């Protein structure tokens, strides 16, 4: 067993977990944050993507104990209260989701992607970078659209901030 503590969505949490416990299981079962999903066993589908210390991580590839001391953000922590993050808003506006199961991972991966590309994104880049996130419902068409729209919005904001 390992005693772990970390910051999840801005809150200090701690727990005692079996050493083999994956981060995703600690989040879902230990903390009841069921927005992060498990869609495969091989770190392919990306339904479990969260941010660990600001970077997108498949939480099924990381032991909970490895996240000891980390700052973790899950889909539940992405919005600012009732104000949706621009990526969340864009997914809704552009119908970037259907069954919703891959959506949390998509949105967390997309947020990270946009952050890593302050210069902006094009369709080919978005498609290439979504390689680690599988969706079976949308054919990705509207997911790509949503990410491009959110990227535009967020980078404009970013640039405006820099200018200020």
């Amino acid at each position: 067993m390992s005693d772990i503590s970390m910051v999840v969505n801005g809150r200090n949490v701690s727990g005692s977990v079996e050493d083999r416990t994956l981060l995703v299981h600690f989040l879902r079962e230990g903390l009841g944050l069921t927005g992060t999903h498990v869609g495969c066993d091989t770190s392919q589908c990306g339904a479990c993507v969260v941010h660990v210390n600001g970077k997108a991580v498949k939480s099924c590839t990381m032991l909970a104990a490895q996240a000891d001391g980390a700052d973790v953000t899950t889909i539940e922590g992405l919005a600012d209260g009732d104000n949706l993050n621009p990526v969340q808003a864009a997914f809704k506006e552009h119908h970037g989701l259907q069954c919703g199961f891959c959506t949390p991972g998509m949105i967390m991966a997309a947020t990270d992607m946009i952050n890593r590309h302050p210069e902006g994104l094009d369709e080919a880049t978005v498609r290439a970078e979504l390689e680690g996130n599988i969706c079976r419902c949308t054919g990705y068409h509207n997911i790509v659209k949503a990410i491009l729209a959110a990227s535009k919005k967020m980078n404009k904001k970013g640039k405006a901030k820099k200018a200020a």
Partner: protein
Amino acid sequence: MGMEGIGARVARKEDKRFITGGGRYTDDMVVPGMKHAVFVRSPHAHAAIRKINTKAAEAMPGVIGVLTGKQIKADGIGNLICGWAITSKDGSPMNMGAWEPMATSTARFVGEAVAIVVADTQAQARDAAEAVEVTYKEKKVVPDIAAALKKGAPQLHPEAPGNLIYDWEIGDSAATDKAIANAAHVTRMEITNNRLVPNAMEPRAALGHYDKAEDHYTCWTTSQNPHVARLVMSAFYNVAPENKFRVIAPDVGGGFGSKIFIYPEEIICLWASKRTGVPVKWVADRTESFMTDAHGRDHVSTIEIAFDKDNKITGLKADTVANLGAYMSLFSSSVPTYLYATLLSGQYNIPAIHCNVRTCYTNTAPVDAYRGAGRPEACYLIERTMETAARELGVSAAELRSKNFITEFPHQTPVIMAYDAGDFQASLDAAMTASKYDSFERRRKAAAKKGKLRGIGMSCYIEACGIAPSAAVGSLGAGVGLWESAEVRVNAVGSIEILTGSHSHGQGHETTFAQLASDRFGVPIDSVSIVHGDTDKVQMGMGTYGSRSGAVGMSAIEKALDKVEAKAKKVAAHLLEADDKDIVIENGEVKVAGTDKKLQWFEVCLSAYTAHNIPDGMEPGLKESAFYDPTNFTFPAGCYICEVEVDPETGDTEIVQFVAADDFGKIINPMIVEGQVHGGIAQGIGQALLECAHYDSGGELLTASYMDYAMPRADNLPSFDVSTTETACPSNPLGIKGCGEAGAIGSPPAVINAITDAIGNNNLAMPATSQAVWAAIQAAK
């Protein structure tokens, strides 16, 4: 009417919870005292089970119980059923082998459950499952269709000699043979429709809870049709009496057909809960999903299309063998028969059609409906052959199709279906315009300059949705009626709850269905809640599959809305001292036409509930229900055109353009309809380029994870150009045809027609992987 009514592109109400992590799927459910289950599964494709020793497992930490098939049998739980009886052409019933929830004496596919372990944690259950000792004696394996029907093949079920389930036919054999004999030209093809795994992103899961004090059963399950699950589990499997049994299908993460069927796991979890005295939850891992979800397609066919000297089709003959896997899943028998061969007329006027279908058992996972279910197989057969015929006859693919289109409706085909409406030329024209078909040769030349082979291919599909009417499907062997139910509850304050027997697992019903009520009464969709997926709330329903929720589910809602509207008008007429025929409801107001007399919608609703002043003899309240049984199938149709560029050095194929022009009849929310088409096309392109479930000669599933099974990813696909043409469907009150499966039906032949056009070799099977395309290029040299 209004911004949120029929035809409005409204953003989805349900999105809020999904984008904030608030979706509630079966695996998210927690019940006090809940324990976790892991199944012990056969590693062999075909083996006798000699002995199951559970002692060591039972002694493991956290283990509550280890249960086997002998115990479930002893408790009187029934075998799994197939709910559609098919009769062979010699009049004999289909040969259905027994499917036990957990195998007691013989395992017939890799992954078949033989025991269940219940423990405090999933990890403990997994550890203990590994400690269950099962002694197997391996048997000879039947891995595929060819092996199944060989003389002297190993037998899977004593009930099915030669592994043959049925030998069925449809159409006029003699007339078709005559047409072929007298033809000016016959195009012949041998076509395999590759086996697919549906792969909903949410793995199947079940949480069974037997409440001893109440003698009541609850099952949360990943189902597209919770009421059918309750009915089948009560009436056939004897797991729980229907009146004491609640089935809840909460948020469900995609289905595509694979979550229609009642699988062993939900039965076993519920039974195990009673047996162990604790709520039992099971969640499949992805490899379990690959091994045990019902697969799709897996047909091998020959087809002949006969043409006269004017290139008019005179006959179509098909011979198909379909693999149903190791056991007959719930609707498996109907897929390669009534959902397949009845569509072999395609969009064409064909005087004579005959199709023979044999189905067989193999040591593979059960095969059943997967998005399109039989219709993609029919479409692929026809549309590959039509494109090939055009090449053989030296005529344009579009012209050959146009010349043979059905242009008058209703049209009775020789294979049961009576098409009620359509305009096939309109969708072909729309697709050709959108794809700039006429200037393709310029693009081909430009591609050649950069060393690429560019090709174009089309597909004109028709499908049948909203399988109905109930009496007709009953006469064809269906064990259920295929109507839908709805209840509209108007609250005293005018807000509305609509209870539906349809189930949404991505289709956006919470929005689309609300748009109907918004359209009718001028209330915002935010005031309309859709209730579904819970047998305690909705009395009965048939669920969502076969693109039926629009044509059938929404029609039931329309019927109930009619009744609500009529009663509300009577209440208002009474209050306004007018004739109810003169009452109109608009924008949330109830008015006497041509006067300034009016009431607010909520005032009428409140009056219905206070009942202080309603017409004599009228019951208080404003709540109506309806069952809707359609008069016919609906027939969505369209044209898809695909353009590809192939790298001749590697066989790598890029889809550079994909155009879809669909006729879905009336559309309630275009945004949602487009999303359905996008998703369907992606699955169709997946089938054409990437996906295939491979079993080796020993029946081992080689593609049992996302490392091995090629799921379409964002960089395998282009953005799609989708549009619609519209002919109203006369067979339901809304004029809806259905849109859920079209993309998966129409796209595979368009893709393969494009690649074979590019490489100049028509001999190419799905999936057209880079390797397969490269090999076909080499073979053509």
